């Protein structure tokens, strides 16, 4: 088990790209209570989309190296995270949410930094390729082809929100899909970050069948392409609504 945890925690992942993160943050802002939104923007001195990719820009800078591991999570064959693994998004979201229960006793700058981490990580843990199936060779991320040129499987999915919405701004994409009912949103937000991780782990196995390694992106069947788009939108909405839920919970006190 020690070896498995060590492997799991040495893997870092990239992130939804800028438009993906920004869209998720816009969806979150649209679903926050007025009080939570005001407080959040008050600490950030910015909108949430502004800082949505902040962790990506700082991840390799001095003092931030450890955060490289906080963009996704690793699971075993039963879709369970590894006991003792703290270098992952789900754990870090829980850790920061716990600290933020006392946000009004913290320095403003620390609250601001914690918010920036949450904005990124809640979105990122929903990126389809941010689940690492560390013990399963069939689910290793390699390359696909795009018009004959090599393209990382991971890179494709990181950019999927923009790929499926070419020419649209993040706020336009958010407005187009943020149409779920209160009951549907409540169902998405139920549970803990660990529960969300487990469901993501169960469901994201499908993307490896929809777009097998080495396959040509331009030759994906219409059916598979439609399903990939559906998964992208589903994960984007989950990220946005859950981020709103996290922020509303923190600032409800």
């Amino acid at each position, binding site marked *: 088990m020690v070896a498995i945890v060590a492997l799991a925690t040495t893997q870092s992942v990239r992130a939804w790209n*800028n*438009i993906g993160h*920004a*869209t998720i943050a*816009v969806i979150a802002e649209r679903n926050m209570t007025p009080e939570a939104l005001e407080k959040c*923007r008050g600490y*950030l*001195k*910015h*909108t949430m*989309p*502004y800082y949505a*990719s902040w962790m990506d*820009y*700082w*991840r*390799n*800078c*001095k003092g931030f*190296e450890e955060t490289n591991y906080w963009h996704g999570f690793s699971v075993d064959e039963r879709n369970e995270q590894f006991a003792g693994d703290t270098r992952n998004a789900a754990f870090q979201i829980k850790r920061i949410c716990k600290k933020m229960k006392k946000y009004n006793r913290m320095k403003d700058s620390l609250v601001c930094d914690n918010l920036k981490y949450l904005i990124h990580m809640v979105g990122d843990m929903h990126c389809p390729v941010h689940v690492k199936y560390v013990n399963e060779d069939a689910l290793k991320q390699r390359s696909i082809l795009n018009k004959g040129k090599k393209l990382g499987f991971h890179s494709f999915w990181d950019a999927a929100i*923009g790929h499926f919405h070419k020419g649209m*701004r*993040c*706020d*336009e994409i958010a407005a187009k899909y943020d149409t779920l009912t209160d009951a549907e949103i409540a169902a998405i937000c139920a549970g803990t970050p660990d529960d969300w991780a487990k469901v993501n782990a169960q469901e994201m196995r499908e993307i490896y069948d929809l777009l097998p390694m080495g396959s040509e992106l331009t030759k994906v069947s219409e059916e598979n392409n439609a399903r990939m788009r559906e998964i992208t939108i589903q994960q984007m909405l989950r990220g946005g609504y859950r981020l709103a839920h996290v922020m509303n919970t923190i600032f409800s006190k």
Partner: protein
Amino acid sequence: MKRYVILFVAVLCVSTASAWNKFAQECIATLAEQNLTPEAKRQTESILGGSLASGAWWLQQRAGKPETKYTGAWHFISVTDDLRSLTQSEKDGVVQIERCAAVLRNRAEQNDSTVMATLKTLIHLVADMHNVSHVRIGGIPDSRKNFNLLVSNGKLGPKEATTPVSWRKFWDASLINRHASFSPELFALDLTLCYGEQKENFSKGNVREWAEDMGRLCAPLYEWAKPEAYMSREHNNRLELINDKTMARAGYRLAALLNDIFK
């Protein structure tokens, strides 16, 4: 007006077209629009047939055409080595902004197309004079050049690599493109949230004083910004704050100038 046109045409200079990119221009114009008085908004809308943002890119399109290539020089401003704006050169952005303002104040005597072209020119130039790479400082030769920086890809150890990025491209596009998926309204909201409290302070003074303010802001950057200078990701990140600050200054100052012209 005839004199005005002749002077514009007479300024023949070879200059590469350079400006804040279209998105940045639209963000600045949108911030300005949100800070116009109702009267200034009514008049500018009537002249442009749309928002300030709709006219923000017009001058840049002209800079690429042979017959109006001379306007390329107007996108830059100069301050002396003691950071004063004293120039009377027709090639300077500050002089052209003053000229545009004079034409617009005297708009009753101009034809509609002149007023429209002048307003579009003013919108663009007030934005561009706040772009760091468009401020030329006496005694700092590098501020007149478009040299390459070596910008890190932000990776650690042996995976780190650098890419040459021109000084102008860095300030015209690289930093603002981090938010290129935003609508201009969304980015203008960010500028308001961050700099709204400084609006009055930013808006004080006249175009010359704004140029001098930009000179003071830009001069220290050239202590490290030189041809082939290495730029770490951390340094890159920190410069975003300067870029935002200059965009906010541009937006609030454009509004202040238009509010004064269109009383």
